[in-house]
């Protein structure tokens, strides 16, 4: 049977505020346990919440960034349940009136096709703390330790419609969302620190069937790779299960990225009744037109607009433009490279080729690249004016990457990599090559016209080798042809 996968995502995005959503404690990552958990975050008796203005502003910016309606009257509700990382016994969140209404995020797939994923809504809420288990701290046997530094960090929870059909789309969506929130500056985008966490709802159905299958939810995936792997695994599990005559049960699952194992979270199976009600410690947050107008004026160019501009202004392909707009830093790097090199196509190729390969190998962000946009632009200039060949350029790039020199010109000068374009010198070199390869010359000349094209490659190679790659390949080709055919 042919199966179709249906995926909906819930994404928790930590907002890049200085302080918690309801207290003045810092949200900085990595502090010693409970040193950034103030009386409000601990839920001490008698404490009260006050809403952080910046959290509201950032949530609004997200809504504006995905063409969504902004709800003007916002009510915070309490979601009641007991858990040690939830100090008050309730999470303050939004239910009836989320700050961001329906919107959409458009994705581009590897084959160049595009798809619009609908966003159901996005709401503001507070993050929970963390439970540390035996092994991760020197706790007593059988005890867990609770760190509430993260408790109260502002989140927006973004909920999609079930529009995603496979892991590739899910990853493309997740990357696009990452690009949107980092462009907006509302999230640091650091997935390793949990700044974006994905819950994946997966179901399968026979192709052509209208009704959705029973879905499972895999929680808290914190990398694109894990999300992709978890989806692939869960889809396979569901199909195998059904094909073996079983049925999928609705459950919450946990995927372990380190082992690649997934399992049911039995402890969450107990039927929960969250008893939502409006938080009586908070009043309605009213978003007026002044605030909206002010935030609209502050909006940066969004990835889709940027992409359209890159295509129009620089003649980039849809795919190249999509890749370069994936995050703000890459897009900025690209534009700076174009300014320095005056060649968009070469800039794009180098950023997506050599630069990104080097960054990946070293697990570095583009902001940490030892080769700056100005350096890369200078290098491209030298390719364009024939000072160096593409092949030599890679060598120059490598030297720049190692930090031995600070400009391409310096590398070319120091290493003597300047291309040989002097006709006399090239002719002399060719004569030498032809003389020492008399047999090959004879064979060439005896060969028929249509075979010669392939055979000339040998002589070009020998010449380039003799010049240590510095001879201008175009000139070598041309002169060789004259001499051999002549």
């Amino acid at each position, binding site marked *: 049977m042919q199966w179709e996968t249906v995926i909906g995502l819930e994404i928790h995005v930590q907002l890049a*505020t*200085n*302080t918690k959503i309801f*207290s*003045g*404690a*810092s949200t900085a990552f990595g*502090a*010693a*346990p*409970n*040193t*950034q*958990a*103030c*009386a*409000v975050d*601990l839920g*001490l008796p008698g404490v009260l919440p*006050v*809403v*952080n*203005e*910046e*959290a*509201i502003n950032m949530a609004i910016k997200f809504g504006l960034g995905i063409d969504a309606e902004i709800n003007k009257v916002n*009510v915070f509700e309490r979601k009641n349940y*007991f858990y*040690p*990382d939830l100090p008050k016994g309730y999470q303050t969140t939004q239910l009836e009136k989320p700050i961001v209404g329906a919107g959409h995020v458009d994705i581009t797939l590897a084959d160049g096709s595009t798809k619009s994923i609908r966003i159901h809504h996005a709401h503001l809420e507070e993050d929970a703390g963390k*439970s*540390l*288990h*035996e092994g991760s*701290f*020197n*706790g*007593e046997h*059988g*005890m*867990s*330790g*609770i*760190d*509430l530094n993260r408790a109260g960090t502002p989140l927006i929870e973004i909920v999609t419609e079930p529009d995603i059909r496979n892991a590739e789309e899910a990853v493309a969506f997740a990357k696009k969302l990452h690009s949107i929130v980092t462009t907006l500056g509302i999230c640091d985008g650091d997935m390793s620190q949990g700044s974006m966490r994905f819950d994946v709802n997966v179901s399968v159905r026979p192709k052509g069937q209208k009704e959705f299958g029973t879905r499972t939810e895999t929680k808290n995936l914190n990398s694109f790779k894990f999300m992709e792997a978890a989806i692939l695994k869960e889809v396979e599990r569901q199909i195998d299960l059904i094909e073996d005559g079983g049925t999928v049960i609705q459950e919450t699952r*946990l995927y372990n990225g380190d082992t690649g194992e997934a399992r049911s*979270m039995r*402890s*969450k199976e107990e039927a929960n*009744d969250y*008893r939502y009600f*409006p938080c*009586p410690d*908070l*009043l*309605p*947050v*009213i978003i007026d037109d002044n605030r909206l107008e002010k935030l609209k004026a502050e909006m940066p160019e969004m990835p889709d607009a940027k992409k359209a501009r890159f295509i129009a202004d620089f003649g980039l392909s849809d795919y190249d433009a999509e890749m370069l707009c994936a995050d703000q830093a890459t897009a900025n790097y690209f534009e700076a490279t174009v300014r320095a090199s005056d060649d968009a196509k070469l800039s794009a190729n180098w950023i997506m080729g050599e630069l990104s390969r080097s960054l990946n190998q070293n697990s570095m962000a583009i902001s940490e690249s030892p080769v700056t946009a100005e350096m890369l632009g200078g290098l491209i200039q030298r390719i364009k004016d024939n000072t160096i060949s593409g092949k030599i350029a890679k060598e120059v790039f490598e030297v720049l990457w190692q930090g031995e020199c600070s400009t391409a010109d310096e590398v070319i000068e120091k290493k003597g990599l300047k291309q040989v374009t002097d006709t006399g010198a090239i002719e002399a070199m060719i004569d030498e090559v032809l003389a020492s390869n008399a047999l090959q010359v004879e064979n060439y000349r005896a060969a028929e016209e249509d075979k010669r094209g392939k055979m000339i490659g040998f002589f070009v190679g020998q010449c380039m080798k003799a010049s240590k790659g510095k001879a201008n390949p175009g000139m070598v080709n041309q002169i060789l042809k004259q001499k051999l055919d002549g």
Partner: protein
Amino acid sequence: MAIDASGVKKVAKLARLSIDDDAVEATAATISSILELVDRMQAVDTQGVEPLAHPLDAIQRLRPDEVTEENQREQLQSCAPAVEEGLFLVPRVIE
């Protein structure tokens, strides 16, 4: 609306309260009498009445995003039942 023994147990569990078996019936009876009292509301037609969450129609004030709280862990944990390495200790959390 009356509530029976099993109903009371279920609600109590939701609130993380345990009720001794020999007290469940009496508790159910008391809770039922309170529910009977509050059920007097049901006689009133409230169609179209907007619920009132706060008596004065005030709106939320917003706080500037500035750090005002310094580390006070020692003081704030002074009344904690069990702490180790700055963490609050609880019986093992199973996910």
